[in-house]
C-alpha cells in the first residue's frame, strides 16, 4: 500500500525533478559498471536549454529537485555549479522549494567544492564503497587501476568537521565475495561516521545490469543477501530508523515511474531511467535549444504503467516490467481508465 504522501509526491504536477548528466565520462572504471562512457560533456547549447526549461517551469512549481548523475558529475563541476546557481536564484525569486544532490564516487568532492554546493542547496550525496580499503580498491578503481578508497574516506571524514546541513548516504555494495570486507567497513563507519546523524548507510546488492553478464558469479540471491545484511549490520531491522537496503524499502516509487521526473543526458536526450541508458524505450524525447521539450507521450506512458494496478514491483522499478514495445503494452488494449469521481 502506498501512503497518501508518496502518491501525491509521485503525481503532483507542482513538483519537478531533473536528473542531469553534465558529463557521461567517468574518472573510475568500476569492474562491474554498465555504462559505456560514450557521451562526453554537456555542451553549452544543452546547458542553456536546461536553464531555459527551469526558467519556464519554476513559476508553476512548488518544488524543484536537481539530481546530478553521470558518468561522474563532478568531472563537470562547473556545469553543476552554474545550473544550481541559476536554479536557486529563480526558485528563491518565486518562493519555490529547491534542493538537490549528487550520485558521485566522492573522489573529487573536496571540502571547498562541497561547501559551495551545499550552499546552493545541493545537500544530498550518495557515495558508494565496495568494502574496506582492500576490497574497494579491487573493484572501484581509476582507469589506470590506481586505488581510490583512501581519498574518498579522507573526504568523508573531513566533512564531519563542517557545520553545514547535508546528508551523505553511504551506499555499500554487497556481493558473494565481499561480505566479510563490508562487515569490517560497516564497523568502521559505525564508529567513525554514524555518530553524526548527517551520515547514513544503505546497502545495495550488486546485480547484472549489463547484457555482457560480467558479474554473474558474484550476485547473491535474495535469501542469502538478507542473511548477509543481518550478519554485516548485526540487526535484521532498520539502522538508526532508516531503511537499510533495497529489499527493505516501503512505499518506494522509483523516479522513473514519476511523470514529473526526467533525466536529461549530456547530449540533450531525455529519458526516465538512469540504468537503461542504451535502451531505446528509455529515449523518450529531447530538449530543444529554447528549453522546450520534444516528448513522445506514448513512450513516456509505458513508464507509468504501475499506476494501473498500483503494482509495487512496477512502481518501484518500472524497467523490470516495461513492455518490449508500445504495441505490446497493456495501454494498447485497455479501454478502461482508472478514474475516481467523487
Amino acid at each position, binding site marked *: 500500500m502506498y501512503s497518501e504522501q508518496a*502518491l501525491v509526491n509521485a503525481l503532483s504536477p507542482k513538483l519537478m525533478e531533473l536528473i542531469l548528466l553534465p558529463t557521461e565520462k567517468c574518472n573510475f572504471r568500476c569492474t562491474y559498471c554498465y555504462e559505456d562512457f560514450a557521451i562526453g560533456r554537456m555542451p553549452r547549447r544543452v546547458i542553456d536549454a536546461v536553464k531555459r526549461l527551469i526558467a519556464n517551469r519554476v513559476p*508553476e512549481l512548488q518544488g524543484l529537485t536537481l539530481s546530478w548523475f553521470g558518468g561522474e558529475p563532478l568531472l563537470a563541476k562547473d556545469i553543476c555549479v552554474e545550473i544550481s546557481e541559476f536554479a536557486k536564484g529563480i526558485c528563491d525569486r518565486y518562493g519555490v522549494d529547491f534542493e538537490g544532490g549528487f550520485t558521485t564516487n566522492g573522489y573529487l568532492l573536496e571540502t571547498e567544492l562541497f561547501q559551495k554546493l551545499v550552499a546552493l542547496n545541493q545537500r544530498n550525496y550518495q557515495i558508494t564503497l565496495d568494502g574496506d580499503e582492500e576490497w574497494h580498491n579491487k573493484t572501484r578503481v581509476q582507469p589506470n587501476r590506481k586505488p581510490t578508497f583512501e581519498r574518498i574516506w579522507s573526504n568523508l571524514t573531513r566533512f564531519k568537521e563542517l557545520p553545514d546541513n547535508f546528508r551523505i548516504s553511504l551506499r555499500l555494495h554487497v556481493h558473494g565475495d565481499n561480505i566479510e570486507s563490508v562487515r569490517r567497513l560497516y564497523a568502521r563507519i559505525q564508529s567513525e561516521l554514524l555518530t553524526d546523524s548527517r551520515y547514513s548507510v544503505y546497502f545495495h546488492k550488486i546485480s547484472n545490469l549489463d547484457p555482457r553478464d560480467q558479474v554473474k558469479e558474484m550476485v547473491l540471491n535474495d535469501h542469502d543477501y538478507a542473511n548477509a545484511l543481518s550478519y554485516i549490520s548485526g540487526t535484521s531491522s532498520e539502522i538508526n530508523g532508516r531503511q537499510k537496503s533495497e529489499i527493505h524499502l516501503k512505499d518506494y516509487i522509483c523516479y522513473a515511474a514519476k*511523470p514529473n521526473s526526467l533525466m536529461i543526458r549530456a547530449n540533450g536526450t531525455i529519458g526516465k531511467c538512469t540504468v537503461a541508458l542504451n535502451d531505446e524505450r528509455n529515449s523518450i524525447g529531447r530538449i530543444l535549444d529554447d528549453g522546450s*521539450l520534444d516528448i513522445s507521450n506514448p513512450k*513516456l506512458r509505458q513508464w507509468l504503467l504501475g499506476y494501473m494496478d498500483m503494482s509495487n514491483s512496477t512502481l518501484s522499478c518500472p524497467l523490470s516490467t516495461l513492455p518490449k514495445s508500445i504495441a505490446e503494452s497493456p495501454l494498447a488494449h485497455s*479501454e478502461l*481508465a482508472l*478514474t475516481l*469521481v467523487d
Partner: protein
Amino acid sequence: MAAAMIVHPADISMGSDGSVSYQGETSKSVPLMADRQFTAQGKNYNCGNIQCTGDGSNNVVCTNIDCHTTGPTPGG
C-alpha cells in the same frame, strides 16, 4: 466542480514546456461505491480520503490520496 483522481497512464501527458497534465475528460469514470471502494482492472480498491480540485480545464490536482487494492474481484 468535478473532483477526480486520475491514475491511468493513458491520461497522463507532458507538454512541450515540461508540465504534466491529467486529461480527465477523455477517461471513463468509475464511480465510488459504498465505503469508498471501487473496482477497476479486475481488482477491488479501497480508498481513504480523496480530495482533488479541477482548474476549469482538464487538469486536476490531488492533495489527499490513499487507495490500495484488496485483491482480485470475485469471478474476475
